[in-house]
């Protein structure tokens, strides 16, 4: 029997396990998936919890039940990988041996990495929505907010779903407007980037949308610490931003066991070949999803396209054939903009998000970098697609590689 072990039953681990289960014969393969618990969280839903759109219970399901039959599921804290002995050690001392390893342990918010964040104001006036507990607590804080300065803040890049803090800002602006208290709330968007987003054309468009909504942008702001007594963000270059309510995206880091195993970079991401996800250090280790150091957004959609390429490649690799699939960095993200509207951005390693329209069978074209209601419904429909199409490992009717159909390349000088 050949042993495939998949670490993490999040978006990427689940898709890869279910896809490979259908392609690898059970009599030759044992597939084992490990995660610390049995609760799979639909993370994109965390954006909406603070605004009361979802009840938290709508966002979780049993991992075990989402995995196809024939896959072994172990719960336990992953402590270390020994890539030479080819074993994984769990918290209770269990050693799990593997022939091939898929690391899909994602990235998580680390409020402990910014001095002062976890101080007296944590979950009183300082919140994050990247964790389940954080987004639930923030719902109460928003409901009880009577006005003042709301600061939406990102500690540093890369973060998963890099558009989520912008979406949160748009939704918060619309939320306060709908409650008739917009003029009592000053909104500031503090980012370590030089503009609203990383890529120039999208950054300009999204920056205009912040302007139109009278949201002030504090750019190039790299936080050093939070002074929770004075309710102040303090940057390395000694700028200060005062807040009444702070919604921050803490530093995102890969799992600590990656560092302990000697496999990670400074943020515990594993260096891989960006077209095949193969570890640059150990050829029998592949890293899917947010845990890899790919130069593209960390997003579920990226993990989906990546998993498509990877499963084909993996079947070739274990037969001793060259891997012919090559990932182009395709990412496709809905961006909620408030008032029941949204935008869509579609890009890859080489092509930045461009305006235009995105052809989709049956549903019809979606607007790229353009607000409309259809994009918003697309985002909400995504939850159903996630549970019923993505995680079971079925194919989306969207090309795996970026297509230029419908995209408009603006004149270079914009």
């Amino acid at each position: 029997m050949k042993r495939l072990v998949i670490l993490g039953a999040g978006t990427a681990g689940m898709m890869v396990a279910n896809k490979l289960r259908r392609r690898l014969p059970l009599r030759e393969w044992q597939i084992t998936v490990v995660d610390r618990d049995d609760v799979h969280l639909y993370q994109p839903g965390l954006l909406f919890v603070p605004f009361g759109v979802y009840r938290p219970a709508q966002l979780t399901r049993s991992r075990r039940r989402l995995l196809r039959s024939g896959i072994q599921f172990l719960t336990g804290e992953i402590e270390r990988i020994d890539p030479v002995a080819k074993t994984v050690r769990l918290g209770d001392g269990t050693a799990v041996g593997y022939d091939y390893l898929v690391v899909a342990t994602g990235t998580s918010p680390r409020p402990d990495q910014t001095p002062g964040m976890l101080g007296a104001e944590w979950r009183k006036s300082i919140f994050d929505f990247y964790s389940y507990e954080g987004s639930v607590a923030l719902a109460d804080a928003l409901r009880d907010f009577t006005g003042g300065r709301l600061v939406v803040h990102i500690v540093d890049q890369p973060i998963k779903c890099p558009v989520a803090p912008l979406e949160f800002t748009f939704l918060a602006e619309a939320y306060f407007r709908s409650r008739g208290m917009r003029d009592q709330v000053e909104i500031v968007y503090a980012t370590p980037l030089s503009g609203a987003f990383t890529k120039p054309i999208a950054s300009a468009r999204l920056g205009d949308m912040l302007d139109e909504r009278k949201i002030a942008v504090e750019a190039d702001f790299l936080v050093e610490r939070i002074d929770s007594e004075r309710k102040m963000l303090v940057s390395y270059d000694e700028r200060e931003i005062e807040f009444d309510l702070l919604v921050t995206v803490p530093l995102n880091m890969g799992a600590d066991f990656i560092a302990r195993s000697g496999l990670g970079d400074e943020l515990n991401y594993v260096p891989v070949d960006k077209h095949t996800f193969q570890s640059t250090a150990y050829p029998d280790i592949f890293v899917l999803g947010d845990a890899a150091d790919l130069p593209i957004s960390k997003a579920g959609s990226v993990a989906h396209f990546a998993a498509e390429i990877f499963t084909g490649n993996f079947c070739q690799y274990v037969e001793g054939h060259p891997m012919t699939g090559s990932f182009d960095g395709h990412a496709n993200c809905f961006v909620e903009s408030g008032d029941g509207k949204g935008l869509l951005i579609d890009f890859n390693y080489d092509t930045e998000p461009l305006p235009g329209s995105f052809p989709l069978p049956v549903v019809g074209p979606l607007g790229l970098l353009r607000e409309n209601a259809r994009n918003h419904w697309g985002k909400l429909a995504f939850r159903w697609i996630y549970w019923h199409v993505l995680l079971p490992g079925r194919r989306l009717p969207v090309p795996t590689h970026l297509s230029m159909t419908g995209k408009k390349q603006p004149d270079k000088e914009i």
Partner: protein
Amino acid sequence: MPVVTIGPAEVHVDAEGFLTQYGEWTEELAAQLAAQIGIELTDAHWKAISFLRADYPQRGETATLRRVSTLAGIPIKQLFVLFPGKPAKKMAYVAGLPKPRGCV
């Protein structure tokens, strides 16, 4: 790609003046590039720049502030003092490397 003359050397740069050819950089050039953005290079600057130069060929991209800080042991705070304003960009500029990608 425009070619510009900096001191005695002719080098290829992008629209913002970042060198585009890893091999065209020299230590003398670094001093000239630094001078253009008002920085006089000290040992502390060189520690950061040497790290960036050595790291780039292995990783294929310019190190972020956090990477320099963790791996070269220079606190981020000090990088802001050495390369005021936009340290990541300024370090890359002086080290003759591409502007750090905005992290997608």
